[in-house]
């Protein structure tokens, strides 16, 4: 099946199978490796990408469902240098192994778009679908709150 999508600002036309997930197509066909495979059933959030600015688990989206839509991965928000949020992740040591980081950066980017000054609870609720096993979450919450305070993005 023909799939026309925009990925990080670039137009792609791909021949995909009906059962291909968006995650498979991004990683194996397009070569965009930042969405990670953590569980393939929507539990961990490592594969989070934005479709038209809204976060989705790309392991639960069939590639054909994304036809005609615009996909943003963490590479797509890094072309012009680091976003304020990414810089705050570096400053706050908001990751260790980093496997969850692309997904969490995208979920938090969406949160800050919709709610530029989130509270601690807002951050916890918005990111509850993204698991992190290394940090204990505290430094991630700190970074997102700091991004809000600064009125960045």
């Amino acid at each position, binding site marked *: 099946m023909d799939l026309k999508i925009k990925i990080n600002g670039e137009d792609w036309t791909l021949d995909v199978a009906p059962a291909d997930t968006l995650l498979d197509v991004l990683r194996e066909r397009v070569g965009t490796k930042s969405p990670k495979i953590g*569980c393939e*059933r929507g539990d961990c959030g490592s594969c989070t990408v934005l479709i038209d600015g809204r976060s989705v688990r790309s392991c639960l989206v069939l590639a054909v469902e994304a036809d005609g839509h615009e996909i943003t991965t963490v590479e797509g928000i890094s072309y012009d240098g680091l976003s304020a949020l990414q810089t705050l992740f570096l400053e706050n040591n908001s*990751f260790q192994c980093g496997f969850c*980081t692309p997904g969490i950066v995208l979920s938090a980017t969406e949160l800050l778009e919709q709610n530029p000054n989130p509270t601690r609870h807002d951050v*916890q609720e918005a990111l*509850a679908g993204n698991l992190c096993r*290394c940090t*204990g979450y505290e430094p991630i919450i700190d970074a997102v709150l700091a991004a809000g305070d600064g009125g960045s993005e």
Partner: protein
Amino acid sequence: MTTPTRTHVTGGIGTSVRRPDGVPKVTGNFAYASDLHSKDMLWGATLRSPHAHARLISLDTGPALAMTGVRAVLTQDDVPGLPLFGQEEQDQPVLCDGVARYWGEPVAIVAADDEETAQRAAASIIAEWEPLAPLDDPEKAADDGSLFRELKIRRGDKEAAGTVVVEGVYETASQDQAPLGTEAGFAIPDGSGGLDLYVTSQWVHVDHRQIIACLDMEPDQIRCHPAGIGGAFGAREDISLHIHVAMLSLATGRPVKMEYDRSESFVGHVKRHPSKMWYRHEADADGNLVKVTARLLLDGGAYAHTSRAVLANAAFFTVGPYRCDNVVVDAQVVKTNNPPCGAMRGFGAVQACFGYESQMDRLAEELGVDPLDLRRQNAMRGGDPLATSGQVIDAPLPTVEVIDALEAIPLPEPLASDDPRLLPGGTGLTTPASKVVRGVGYAVGLKNVAFSEGFDDYAEARVVLTRAGVEVHTAAMEVGQGLVTVCQQIARTVLGIENVAVVWDDTSHIGSAGSTSASRQTQMTGGAVHAASVGLRDRILADFGGDELRNDGVYRAGERIATIDEICAEGPVEHLVRFRHPETHPPDENGQGDVHAGFVVAAHRAVVDVDPELGLVRVVRVDTAQDVGKALNPQAITGQLEGGIMQGVGLAVMEELVVDHGVIRNPTFTDYLIPTFLDAPAVETRIIEAPDPWGPFGAKGIGESPTISSTPAVVAAIRAATGKALTRAPVRPQDIVGI
């Protein structure tokens, strides 16, 4: 160590330097083992045993071989060398050798053109099984003498007795490390019959030793490369798919990739040993510990892995950081048909800490004294003997200081709001705030650093000065903890040169760094980098008659006498060090001796809110104070303390691998729950610095302690809230409600 600190270098020790792998990780460009690929690669897949114990009557690989796109189907008969592997004891077949001894044991492997074909081909293999009764009861295994190891500790007077006695039986469940990246490996033929391997690992040299033995190859034919890794926590200390992916690549002559999905990951790596512990503490009327008697039983599962070391930790830390002259411990780790267990953060010490800290609280209650005062009164300090082995602690041990620092952290305000987000159960299941009960609990934990019992434990590092800067070469695995940053900081401080890069070398280019486990790399690889940097600096200074090295050359009395280019006129200069910690010894027949190389102590305080009607718990906050020796990177330490606490909270209230007749019933993140953002308690940390005698700049390994006493602190807080005995971790709603 007396190396002077170069104050003019930025990014040295003691500062919260940014990670060198930070930008690649926040931009999605960091390459994990699971991201590696090549155009002509094949995919591997594994057929696994559907039984926990069964005889393999026949195996028909024909249907798989007949499938289009299948390039190889291999079984145990195809293993070219030693048919068994194992880190401590070679007892596990590479593939099923006629009997499956645990659920999910690998039986056959397939390489095919794509992932789906490989998986379908593996599933098409016809295996005929004769199911056998699984030995799934650890106590029965102990009665049957099915043991990996037994350890007896006899210290002091066996007739000693106290006047105040508490006895208890405690259990901890099996916990999965649940690193977010699953097992992944990529094997590339080198064109000369050998391979380059990139597999998720904590110790590439110990992988290498097992792989070449099973493949019957020379050491230089197989090169194991450190690869990007999505967390470890002990799950990667033992072989998973390493030998399989190598066999498939050798058989096909093609690059092969293997990657476990989450459910396969749950069966594909070793877990934390479940435990059952009988304890008897005896004290005199003043609260001094007189005698501790314990029997510890750990379930090692089907194969040995690191069970021997895990048992030793449990046994030697039976009493914790307390003085006691009379100790009797009988510790066993049994062999069953349950999932194989190995290392997880705090291995062995986690289980024992749940037992002894539960007992210390009960003893305080029996004596009618404050639980923290009882701990202070009995606290082990530098110069005291370890209660179990009798080893005299030859370094400061700030047990009382961590308790004092922890107690000084202010407690949170009482729960005053009916905001459901602050209540146990969250927005889905709530009781009014007025019915929520708050509890506070404390625990203190002790852990050894690095390998013990006479193991020849070393780490190799090479420090090279080039015209472009300094390179630190090591095979030590960075698993997220921040070792790369600390290695840079140590080299900068010693050399006085800011431009330091850490280079991962494969097994053919550098000697072993040892395992990234046992809280050992900051002290071991950090120690090697320190010694190699000192050696390099001192040689350069001697060669040029200088007294100081700086970013731009050698100085004497403040005047530059040679540039970096001049130092490197004949090429890069380097220094290689194989660093060893002070010698340790195996215990004698009574479990006595200088068994350990170093010790770390930490304390935790948990505050919980409990809904006693539904048995729901919200962990409000967990505070900690920990001895770190010397804080090389305070921010990275805080990160380890916070992250480790969360895994301890997981074991306290939600994480349990449910095993039924040897079968894991919850091998997904839908059913095996790890803490989320909404479960995250607030954390306050206090860092105590009691310098280690041999760690670089006095630093101690700190990675495991956060996971050791956090679990019993949370359970103690739930006991304080509910008045229930709660002798098992994790605490389940039914344990609180009493159904």
